[in-house]
């Protein structure tokens, strides 16, 4: 009896925690809208390339990055974006090759600050990350060959926020 009650309680609390998790995410979104910084990135049309390779933004604790795969619908080509810790792009790309470009294997790589899913043509996703300080944050597409062979990568230059 006690066991059953415990089970029910633990299931219930899981449910509640989940809900809290969701509303926390919503709060973050709201925060980013007010005090955070937003960045828009897309593919360069149907090319295996980003539309920007150098982006400058002021430092903020919450940065929302929206990525759009603008490849033609029939092209089937997937893209994504991973924001990396400063200075980690070479190490990361080696690890990516060693993983066989396996998104599941690479997603826990310590170099990654945030990463979108692999997005189909026309799809988009917004992700949030929280840089600890200003700096040059590399971003790459982890699809096979895109960053390491075809140069689908760039740098997010997060500058010191101007003091008012």
């Amino acid at each position, binding site marked *: 009896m006690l066991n059953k009650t415990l089970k029910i309680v633990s299931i219930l609390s899981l449910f509640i925690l989940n809900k809290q998790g969701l509303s926390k995410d919503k709060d973050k979104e709201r925060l980013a809208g007010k005090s955070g910084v937003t960045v828009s990135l897309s593919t360069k049309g149907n090319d295996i390339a980003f539309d920007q390779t150098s982006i400058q933004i002021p430092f903020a604790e919450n940065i929302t990055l929206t990525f759009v795969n603008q490849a033609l619908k029939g092209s089937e*080509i997937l893209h994504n974006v991973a924001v990396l810790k400063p200075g980690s792009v070479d190490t990361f790309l080696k690890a990516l090759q060693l993983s066989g470009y396996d998104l599941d294997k690479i997603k826990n790589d310590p170099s990654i600050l945030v990463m979108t899913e692999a997005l189909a043509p026309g799809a988009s996703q917004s992700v949030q990350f929280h840089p600890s300080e200003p700096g040059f944050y590399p971003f790459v597409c982890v699809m*096979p060959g895109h960053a390491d062979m075809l140069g689908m990568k760039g740098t997010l230059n997060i500058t010191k926020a101007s003091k008012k």
Partner: protein
Amino acid sequence: MKRFLVILPLVITPFAFAKDHIITQKGKAFSESEITLAPGDNLIFKNDDDTSHNVFSAVEPMKFNLGIQKPGSEASHKFDSAGVAELRCAIHPKMKIKVTVK
């Protein structure tokens, strides 16, 4: 002397006759999952799909990129030195073929 004459063609043969090997791309897959070549051999990639492919190898010393390959077209790459490479398609993440040159 006679013996020498017999052996000589055997030594020269692998260099004189580099082979062409054909790999077909159909149904978003390579026709083989692995292939073994001799140094100097060519791999010819035929695109029998109605979608483009882009074969590449990202790791030195066999780094190369065939670029976007339209439906119905052919592209080839010559493998000069011994080694192992995993070739992939930049458009279809599941396509791969292991090439051993020895």
